[in-house]
C-alpha cells in the first residue's frame, strides 16, 4: 500500500513545534541513525532507496554523497531552499509545516558524510519561513539534537539559515555557493564539482529541501519500504505542485509514476468551469511543454525524458484554451532574460534578444522570419552555456515554438 510520506502530518496543529513533532514519532530516525547506525550503513541505505534529487536534475542522493573525498578539510552541507523555478512551491510547504523533518534529514545526512556545519540557503522572499526554521533550529539545540556531542554520539553539528537576495540563478548549486560566500551569485565552471571543491573551497554536499526531508523516513522504514512508495529506480513519493486553471491548485504528494492526467483531472479536480485544457508544463517552467493530448503520461524522471520533457521540480502548470501561447512565451522569455546572471555570452545576450523579438510580436510588429529566428537563437543557447540556465531557457522556447507554431504565426503581421 502506497502512502503519504512527507505530507502525512501536514495540517496538524503546531506540527512545526518540536513537542508536537516528537509526539508523531519525530527525531526517532535521528536517534536510530546516531546511536545504532554507522555512517557507511546510512549511505548504503540511502543508495539502496534510489532517492533521486528533488530539485530538478534527479541525481541519486546517495551517489552524490559518496563523491565527497576523504579529507582533513571541513565539509559542508548546503540545503538548497532557494525554490525559484516558476510554478514550484513544494519546499515552502515542507519548511513551514514540518521544519523538523528537514532538520532531521540534515542531522542524519551530516552524520553520514562527516559534516559539522550545515547551511540552509533559503529564498529571500520566504522571510516568515526562515524565521520558522530559526525557531525550529533553536528548539532542536535546546533538546540536544544540534550543537556539541549530539545524543552522546560525539557528533557535533551547527545549522545556519542564510537568506538569498532574490536571484533565480542562486538556486543553481555553484551560484548558491558563491552567494553563500558573500559574492555575486555567478555559477562556477565545473569541474571541479562541489563534492570535491565547494563552499569555501571545501567538499560540499548540496541537496534540495524535499530530498533531505526524505532521509528520516528512509532511516526509519528502510530502503525497501521507500522504493515501494515509488518506482524501483526512482524511490519514494513526489510532491507535485499543481497551479494554473484547475479547480484545486495546490500540492499533492503522490507516488512517482502517477499519471499526469490523473493528477490534473482526479487529484486537482480537473479544469476550472468553462475552461478547456490546452497545454501543461510538467516540471517547472524550464520543462518542455506538453500539449493536451500528450498528458497520458507517467510522472517519473524516465517517462518524461522519453516524452522529450522533464520531471524537474514536479511543478505542473496547467494552461487553458483561453490563454494565448504568445503570452506564455512572453512570460517565459521575460523571466529568463531577467534572471540570466549575465556571465556567459549565449545566455546573457540570447535570452534578451529572444525576449525583445517576442515583445515586438506581442506589439503586433511580428515579421515572417521571427519564429525561425527565435528557434535559431534558442538552439544556439542550448548546450552552449556555462550553467544549466541556458538549457532551462531554451527548452521551453523550443518546445513552444515547435508545438504551437501555427498559433504563433497567426500573431505575425501578414
Amino acid at each position, binding site marked *: 500500500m502506497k502512502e503519504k510520506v512527507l505530507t502525512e502530518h501536514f495540517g496538524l496543529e503546531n506540527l512545526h513545534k518540536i513537542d508536537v513533532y516528537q509526539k508523531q514519532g519525530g527525531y526517532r530516525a535521528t536517534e536510530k541513525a546516531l546511536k545504532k547506525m554507522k555512517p557507511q550503513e546510512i549511505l548504503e541505505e540511502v543508495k539502496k532507496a534510489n532517492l533521486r534529487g528533488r530539485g530538478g536534475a534527479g541525481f541519486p542522493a546517495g551517489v552524490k554523497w559518496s563523491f565527497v573525498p576523504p579529507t582533513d578539510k571541513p565539509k559542508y552541507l548546503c540545503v538548497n531552499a532557494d525554490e525559484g523555478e516558476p510554478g514550484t512551491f513544494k519546499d515552502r510547504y515542507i519548511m513551514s509545516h514540518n521544519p523538523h523533518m528537514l532538520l532531521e534529514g540534515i542531522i542524519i545526512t551530516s552524520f553520514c558524510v562527516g559534516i559539522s556545519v550545515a547551511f540552509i540557503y533559503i529564498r529571500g522572499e520566504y522571510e516568515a519561513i526562515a524565521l520558522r526554521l530559526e525557531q525550529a533550529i533553536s528548539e532542536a539545540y535546546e533538546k540536544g539534537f544540534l550543537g556539541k556531542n549530539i545524543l552522546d554520539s560525539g557528533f557535533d553539528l551547527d545549522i545556519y539559515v542564510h537568506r538569498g537576495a532574490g*536571484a533565480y*540563478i542562486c538556486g543553481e548549486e555553484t551560484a548558491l555557493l558563491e552567494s553563500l560566500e558573500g559574492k*555575486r551569485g*555567478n555559477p562556477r*565552471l565545473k569541474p571541479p564539482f562541489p563534492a570535491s571543491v565547494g563552499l569555501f573551497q571545501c567538499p560540499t554536499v548540496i541537496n534540495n529541501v524535499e530530498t533531505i526531508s526524505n532521509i528520516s523516513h528512509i532511516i526509519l522504514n528502510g530502503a525497501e519500504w521507500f522504493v515501494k512508495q515509488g518506482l524501483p529506480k526512482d524511490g519514494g513519493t513526489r510532491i507535485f505542485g499543481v497551479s494554473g486553471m484547475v479547480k484545486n491548485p495546490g500540492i499533492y504528494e503522490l507516488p512517482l509514476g502517477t499519471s499526469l492526467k490523473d493528477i490534473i483531472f482526479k487529484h486537482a479536480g480537473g479544469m476550472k468551469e468553462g475552461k478547456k485544457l490546452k497545454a501543461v508544463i510538467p516540471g517547472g517552467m524550464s520543462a518542455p511543454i506538453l500539449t493536451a493530448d500528450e498528458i497520458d503520461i507517467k510522472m517519473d524522471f524516465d517517462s518524461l525524458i522519453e516524452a522529450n520533457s522533464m520531471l524537474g521540480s514536479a511543478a505542473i502548470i496547467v494552461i487553458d484554451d483561453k490563454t494565448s501561447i504568445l503570452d506564455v512565451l512572453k512570460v517565459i522569455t521575460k523571466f529568463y*532574460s*531577467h*534572471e*540570466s*546572471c*549575465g*556571465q*556567459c*555570452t*549565449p545566455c*546573457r*545576450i*540570447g*535570452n*534578451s*534578444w529572444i525576449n*525583445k*523579438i517576442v515583445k*515586438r510580436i506581442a506589439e503586433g510588429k511580428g*515579421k515572417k*522570419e521571427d519564429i525561425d*529566428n527565435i528557434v535559431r537563437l534558442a538552439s*544556439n543557447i542550448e*548546450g*552552449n*552555456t*556555462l550553467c544549466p540556465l541556458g538549457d532551462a531557457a531554451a527548452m521551453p522556447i523550443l518546445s513552444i515554438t515547435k508545438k504551437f507554431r501555427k498559433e504563433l504565426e497567426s500573431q505575425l503581421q501578414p
Partner: protein
Amino acid sequence: MIKIFIDEEPVEVEEGTTVLKAAERAGIHIPHLCYHPAFPPEGSCRMCLVEIEGFPKLELACSTVVKEDMKISTKSERVVEARKAVLEFLLAEHPLDCPICDKAGDCKLQDYYDEYGLFESQFKETKEKKEKKIKIGKHLILDQERCILCTRCVRFLKEVTKTQELGVFHRGVHSCVNIYDGAVIENNYTGNLAEICPVGAITDEDFRFKTRTWFLKEGESICPLCSRGCNILIQYHAGFSRFELPKRVYRIKARENPEVNGFWICDRGRYGYSYIDEGRTDQIILNKIERENVLTRENISEYLGEKIKSVASAEKASGIALILHTWLSNEELFLLHKIFRKGLKVEKIFFADLPQGKGDEYLLTSETSPNRRGAQEIGFDIKTVDLDALAKGTDFLLAFGPFLSGLFSLKDLKAALDKIKRKVLFSPHSNELDSLFDMVIPVALIAEKEGSLTNVEGIVQDFQPVLEPPGDSLPEWKVLSDLGKELGIDSDFFKKFPTPETILSEMGKTIPFFKRKND
C-alpha cells in the same frame, strides 16, 4: 607525455595540458576572448568551444584537460556554427563603431568576425544603452557598451594588483563592468588593463585618438627604465611620411616572458617612452675643437685615439678620467673595461646615473637604469662622481650620458670641467651639459642599437634595434670597437671589429657569469 588527436592529427602533449594549450602547441589557434594565460580559465565567452569525441555537448578548450587518445575537433561544422553563434550574440549588442574605435585593427572581436563570422546581422531590435565614457584611472576610459564582459580587467585587478577596483554590476543583458563607488584605479600597472581588453572597452588616453593601429609597426625590445628588464614591444609610426609626425613611438606594450615580467609591464615603462623622441641630439656638437672641418661620425674614433695617445704615456692612467652610466649595454661596458681599466689602467672611473626611484614589490625596481648588475659583473666598482677627484690631474675626460647635470649644479660642474684640458661627451639627449664639453657625440638609445642587458636578477637579455638612430647618432659599441683598434689594445680581439654578438661570446670566455649554456 600523452597522445591526443587534434583535427585528426596526432599531437604529443604533457599531462594536465588544456585543449587550448595543446592546440596552440600544434599550431592551431582556437579563438577565445575571456581566456588569458595569466589567469585560471573563466569559461564565460564560449568562443573556445570544441567538439570532443564521446562528449555529448561542445566542451570548453580553455578549461578541458586532455586525456590519452582524446579526439578533438576544432573545425567541425558544429564547432564553427557555435563560434558563429557566439559572435552573432556578441555583435548583436556590441556597438559597430570600429571606424572611431582605437582598438580597430587590433581587436579580437573584429578579427574573429573576419575569420569566422561574415554574416548579415539578424538583430532588428534596439541595443542596450550603457555608459560610454567612464574615467576609471589616470589614463583609462571605460566604454560599457563595447564591453563583452570577458572580465579580464576585473580578474587582473583581483589577481595581479589585488586592488579590486572593478566589478560586474547588474545582471543579464544589463550586466556591466564598472568601478566601485569612490574608487580610482591607481597602481603601477594600470596600463595593462587597456592592453588585455580584447575589444575597445578600456582605452588608454595616452594612445586614444592619436593614430590608428595599422599605421604602426612594432619591434621587440627591453624596457630600460628600471633594472627589471621587462620585455616590451615598441610600436612606432612607419611610412605615411606625407604627414609631419610629432614622434615615432606611439605605444609600448608588454611582451610575454615568464622568467622576467610574465605578461605585464609597469606604467613607468609603458608611459615613459617620450625620451625616445624628445630632446635628442642628432648632430655632432663641436664647441672647442681644432679639426672641426673634418670631424664626422666616421673619424671620431681616430680623433679620440689620437687625443688619448697624446696624454703623456707616463701619466696615462692618472691623466684620463671616465664618467659612465648603467644604460650602457653589457658589450659596451665590457669594451670600456677592456680598453680603459685593463688596457690603460685608468682608475678614475665614475658612474653618473639617475637618482634611485621608488620600486614596488612586483616588477618595478628602485634602480632607474637597466644594467647596474651588468656593470658589476663585468668588474666595475660603481663609484658616484666626485668632482674634485675627477678634475685633479685629469687631461682627458670621456663622459657618457646626460645624467651628470642632475647630480650637480651647472656652476660646480663648470668649475670642475674647466680644469680639464680635453673633454668629450657621448649623449643621446641634449641638455645644459653640452656647452661644458669640447664636443658632444650623439649616441643611439637601447631602442636603436644592438646589445644585451643584465637585469636585477642576473638574467642577460639581448635586444636588437627597433628604430634608426637619429641623424649622426652612433651606438657606443661601434665607437668603442674602433677605438680599441685605434689604440692597439688586445689587437687580436679588436682587429676583427667586434660586434655585440662576438663581444658577448668573448665575455663568456673571460667572465664565467656571461657564459651561455650553448657556448
